[in-house]
């Protein structure tokens, strides 16, 4: 066999992104097993990972993790390029854009819960637009807006709290072990 002339050396950052994306994909697949009363209302547990990555490693990595999760998650669930895939992709892109803005809100006042709720609203907003324009070209889709909005608040708060708790415990763990032992290879930590 000819030796490949192309050698890809994953950087520390690549490994970190892959690890976080893997966690997000696991949550996506696990969530798909939960029976839900209404199509489109999902807890979006994978977004917890996005929120944690956003707070710890910045927006660029959150984008990588979130989009990798959408692509790999849909491949695993057999949804790739199906309507559901485009709905999650549009939702993910919109939430990432909103998160990019929301992360600059004063940290003293706005925490992961705010980020989570705002992202959830961006998510349903983009999905509704895609659904209205492409999948259900009728204003009837808007009949479900109040339900989606309620779900966005509820799951936004829950996901935000879980992300906040994880961040808190990661910070405690880091403080206890001096420098982050578990993530010792990640030397370049963005200043907070």
């Amino acid at each position, binding site marked *: 066999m000819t030796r490949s002339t192309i050698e890809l050396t994953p950087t520390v950052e690549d490994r970190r992104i892959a690890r976080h994306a893997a966690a997000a994909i696991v949550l996506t697949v696990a969530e798909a097993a939960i029976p839900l009363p209404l199509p489109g209302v999902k807890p979006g547990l994978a977004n917890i990972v996005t929120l944690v990555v956003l707070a710890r490693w910045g927006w660029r990595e959150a984008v990588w993790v979130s989009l990798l999760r959408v692509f790999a998650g849909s491949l695993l669930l057999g949804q790739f390029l199906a309507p559901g895939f485009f709905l999650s992709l549009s939702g993910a892109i919109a939430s990432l854009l909103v998160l990019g803005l929301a992360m600059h809100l004063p940290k003293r006042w706005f925490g992961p*819960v705010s980020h989570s*709720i705002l992202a959830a609203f961006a998510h349903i907003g983009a999905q509704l637009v895609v659904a209205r324009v492409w999948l259900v070209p009728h204003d009837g889709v*808007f009949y479900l807006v*109040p339900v989606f909005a309620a779900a966005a608040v509820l799951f936004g708060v829950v996901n935000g709290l879980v992300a906040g708790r994880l961040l*808190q415990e990661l910070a405690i763990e880091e403080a206890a072990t001096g420098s982050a032992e578990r993530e010792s290879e990640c030397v370049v930590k963005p200043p907070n």
Partner: protein
Amino acid sequence: MIRIPADWRALLRPGDWLVIAAGLVLCVYSGIGFWTAGAPDGVIVRAGGKVFAEADLSRARRIEVPGPLGTTLVEIEPGRARVAADPGPRQYCVRQGWLDRAGAVAICAPNQVSLILTGRGADYDSLNY
């Protein structure tokens, strides 16, 4: 009110409460906006193509509409209206029952009487049979 344990509550910063409140307001607002849009607010009764009566749907009343075959009886109740009786042979407009969506129409063609509910956000402009 749901009791949140203190260690979880500590994760909520002041602005977070604000965002939660804004989210809930949006829920209620969209609920009002999207779920009451089809509610009718008035009724127009036509006879022989001309407007015979216009009424709001706030209180119950009955309107007797004369036509070529006889009298069509329109009944109005808060939020809905129907043709209660009609001299027409097939009774289509009577059997349609109560109309309660904006834009809904009952037409008693033989007696040349029609009933239409008006309102914001009607589902359709007109109906053809």
